[in-house]
């Protein structure tokens, strides 16, 4: 019987082996690629569920790669935070790979094999980032993720090449910053293990190099997660990538960078360091607040649906980072600590995943890119458009959708922080509420075009032209989850997983002082 202790490493290894298998199997039979990828991700997903279950009941899983003990060997440490992000990541990957079968056959008929090989590599990288307990290993996986993402974005050719190149340049700069940070820490502590670092570092908190390293990490990861104003690569990359990749980029890849940031902040460094030595979270809050507004305003200016969604992602990353920024100054068991951030990571993955998949569906069916071209599609593709509407309503934040819950939680967190020593944070309440209205403007425009416009409203015979089931089901699952998960949050918060994460980092109600 396979013990749960081995699952973390298996998740990564299986995925990587599968990537090479796809390459070989695809050489023999193109059709097999998708199935191999699907099967692998399904197995990974099931494993991740076991891991999550184990971590929440029995505590963290620690695995030494090759049996080498930690400061020298690589260590995988899975606590509640990793497990949570891993489950989400593999779930969305599973949805996207199901969707991709028909879409890739249509969109990239000559590159099926390389697409799935890269896709699997991308998943490998993402799993690696989430699971590893070694900071250099994390860097390696970030590079694996990014490299496969560059290639996947470029796979459509033409204008996508430029988008991919911009991403490549900026992504490389971000990775350099990250590596510099690692180098500084290694020079001072002589270790790369996260747990080891967290034990050695506190005595060096006064050290300028340690503080500089933190800033390098922050800047590097900010580029990776497209935090305003370092978001310039994102709109092109997201709009020109194949749609399932857009969904993954927006729903997971930038969120995994957020995960890395949280890990660096609270596992490598500590709350004490952030609040006392480099009080950067205040700055991040304001930056995110500006990002929320600017991202939405830029989204309003877009004509291309996928580009609009991409700018909306900039705004949504603002939500997540604002919630992260507030995490050190809130202490409620319900919306204190990382709760709102972790919640919105899931919510954004569901909403944006669904929206990008629907945008891809329009391209799949009729090469429709611009919002103005979507007139009257609701009669041709009623289910797809219904999915879009549910997700759009969530983005606007109509109760009881996921968007509403995140919005309320972040507002409560801001109020909490405002009454706990940061009176200016009351502005965030206004920012969040105002952003609701901006979201309304650009999402409702699309919904209106889908349902209310079109030439032949009185003709009874409009031919149904719905998506194939393998694409429709992923869309509808994500759309339904936008509402179901919203109600789930309202009922189930505070979740034990969130509690464990906050306890782990000493945030929220577990804060000392």
């Amino acid at each position, binding site marked *: 019987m396979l013990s749960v202790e081995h699952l973390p490493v298996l998740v990564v290894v299986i995925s990587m082996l599968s990537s090479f298998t796809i390459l070989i199997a695809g050489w023999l039979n193109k059709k097999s690629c998708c199935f191999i990828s699907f099967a692998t991700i399904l197995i990974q997903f099931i494993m991740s569920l076991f891991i999550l279950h184990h971590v929440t009941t029995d505590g963290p899983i620690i695995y030494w790669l090759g049996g080498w003990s930690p400061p020298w060997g690589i260590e995988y440490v899975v606590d509640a935070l990793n497990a949570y992000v891993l489950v989400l990541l593999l779930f969305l990957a599973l949805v996207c790979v199901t969707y991709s079968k028909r879409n890739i056959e249509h969109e990239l008929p000559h590159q099926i094999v390389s697409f799935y090989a890269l896709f699997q590599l991308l998943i490998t990288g993402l799993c690696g980032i989430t699971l590893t307990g070694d900071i250099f290993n994390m860097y390696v996986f970030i590079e694996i993720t990014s490299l496969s993402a560059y290639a996947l974005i470029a796979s459509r050719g033409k204008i996508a090449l430029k988008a991919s190149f911009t991403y490549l340049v900026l992504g490389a700069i971000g990775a350099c910053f990250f590596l510099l940070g690692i180098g500084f820490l290694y020079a001072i502590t002589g270790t790369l293990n996260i747990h080891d670092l967290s034990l050695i570092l506190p005595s060096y908190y006064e050290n300028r190099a340690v503080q500089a390293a933190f800033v390098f990490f922050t800047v590097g990861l900010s580029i990776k997660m497209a935090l305003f104003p370092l978001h310039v690569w994102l709109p092109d990359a997201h709009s020109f990538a194949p749609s399932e990749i857009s969904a993954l980029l927006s729903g997971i890849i930038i969120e995994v960078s957020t995960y890395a940031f949280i890990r660096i902040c609270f596992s490598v460094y500590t709350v004490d360091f952030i609040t006392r030595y480099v009080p950067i979270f205040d700055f991040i809050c304001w930056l995110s607040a500006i990002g929320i507004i600017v991202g939405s305003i830029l989204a309003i200016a877009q004509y291309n649906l996928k580009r609009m969604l991409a700018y909306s992602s900039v705004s949504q990353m603002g939500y997540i980072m604002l919630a992260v920024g507030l995490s050190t100054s809130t202490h409620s068991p*319900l919306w204190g600590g990382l709760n709102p951030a972790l919640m919105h990571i899931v919510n954004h993955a569901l909403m944006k995943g669904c929206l990008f998949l629907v945008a891809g569906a329009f391209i799949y069916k009729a090469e429709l890119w611009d919002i103005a071209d979507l007139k009257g599609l609701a009669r041709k593709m009623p289910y797809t458009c219904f999915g879009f509407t549910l997700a759009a*309503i969530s983005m*606007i934040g*109509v*109760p*009881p959708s996921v968007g509403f819950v995140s919005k*309320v939680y972040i*507002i*409560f967190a801001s*109020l909490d922080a405002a*009454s706990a020593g940061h009176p200016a944070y009351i502005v965030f*309440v206004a920012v969040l*509420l*105002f952003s*609701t*209205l901006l979201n*309304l403007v650009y999402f*409702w425009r699309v919904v*209106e075009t889908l*349902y*209310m*416009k*079109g030439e032949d*409203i*009185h003709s009874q015979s409009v031919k149904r032209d719905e998506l194939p089931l393998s694409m429709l089901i992923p869309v509808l699952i994500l759309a339904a989850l936008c509402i179901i998960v919203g109600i789930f*949050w*309202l*009922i189930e*918060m505070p979740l034990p997983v969130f509690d464990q994460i906050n306890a782990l980092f000493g945030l929220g109600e577990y804060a000392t002082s």
Partner: protein
Amino acid sequence: MIAEVESLTPVIAILCPAIASILIILFGKWPNIREGWTMLAAVLQFLIVISMVPVILEGNIIKCIFFTPFPGVEFGFSVDAFGLVFAITSSFLWILVSSYSIGYMRSLHEHAQTRYYFCFAWAIFGAVGIALSGNLLTMFIFYEILTVSTYPLVAHDQTPEALFAGRKYLAYLLTAGVFFLAALIITYHISGTMDFVNGGIPNLAAEASRATLMVLFMLFLLGFMKAAWMPFHSWLPTAMAAPTPVSALLHAVAVVKAGVFGIIRVVCYIFGVDLMHALGLGLVLISIAIFTIIVANLFALAQDNLKKRLAYSTINQLSLVIFGVALLTPAGIEGAMIHIPFHAFMKITLFMCAGAIMVASGKRNISDMAGIGRVMPVTLITFTIGALGMCALPPTAGYLSHHLLVHGCEEAGGAISYFPYILLIAAILDVMYFFPIIYIAFFKKPEGGSKLKEAPLFMLVPIVITATCSIIFYFYPDLFYMSDLVETAMSSLNIGGGVHP
């Protein structure tokens, strides 16, 4: 002694339209079965709602809690007498409007009827949900559902004009939702509860400064833009681009009444009359109401489109409700509460008449309606009854609520005891824009022949029923337990009467 009764009845009442909406979609291809579901759900919902009356009249509260999203805030229903007044009104009128819709939509061969009935069911879901909800959060959720589900109804025609109306509608009402959300979050932040409490949340005054409470109240007022108080009223006349049954039910009953319902909830159950006195907010509210009453009536005088004129009349009457509650006296609040169902019955008659005229003769403008009373006598007689109600003349329900409002002014004393004159001016203005319609319809020579041509029976019967109800209310205000319920609500509010500065 107030007892709390645990019961699932409110949920079943709410679920009727929700389940009906799914059946409507499934049976979209068979119009008769589809409309059958609507009617069935409407009748069932009304019966379920009315079945809660006896328990409530004994002074109890029916509670049904699902879960607790935040400490101290439960998602669930808590039915009291005042909520039931609104619930009975909307669910009873839904039956009539469903029948009316069938006549209207089929006569005009409207498109997308399945979508229409689907959204209609959800709108009722929202309205009854608002009526039965026991705290601000639950109310907010249904409030937003009501807003979103009525958008497709307003933009139903899909003409540029209708699309503009829909956009304006959403822009106003979802913005209002944002203010409402801000207000309820601040309320929770201050007091740690969102429940509606008889006489107001007790610790609200102690926990917050005067200025905060003032701002909070303004946020609430902005949040209830659905009440169409001026200067935030202009979505309502524009929304008249909707099909007439929508204007009838949603813009005379469900949507706008949700707004004034919310204002009464906030004044009496969140702030409480005493705190309103202490903050001097009654006067603010009265000023807004009086401004709206007079200006809306002046606007109404200038309208030639019948539905637009009715829309401005609605704005005026809604502010009468606000006026009543702003008096902060027992009679005033009672008048405000009872005016919600009374006005609903009278205004829905007027709107349905406007729709019937449109279906039977295609006329929308008052100036074209010369002699139409001879062609459609039944419709125009009912219209006259409704118009009498608007002008607060006996023997209609409108007289009763106005009577209470005047009594409320006297109770308030001071300068306010002169305010009945303002009501009088308003009533005269009402006469000035309603009686010409009646004159034109009955006494001017018709252009064509005066052959009888009424609207289909599906439409005529509901109109006659609502008009009859408006008259019955005058003689027997306890129809549908209305006056009993309002009195129960008043006695549990327990407002001390008497003069205040």
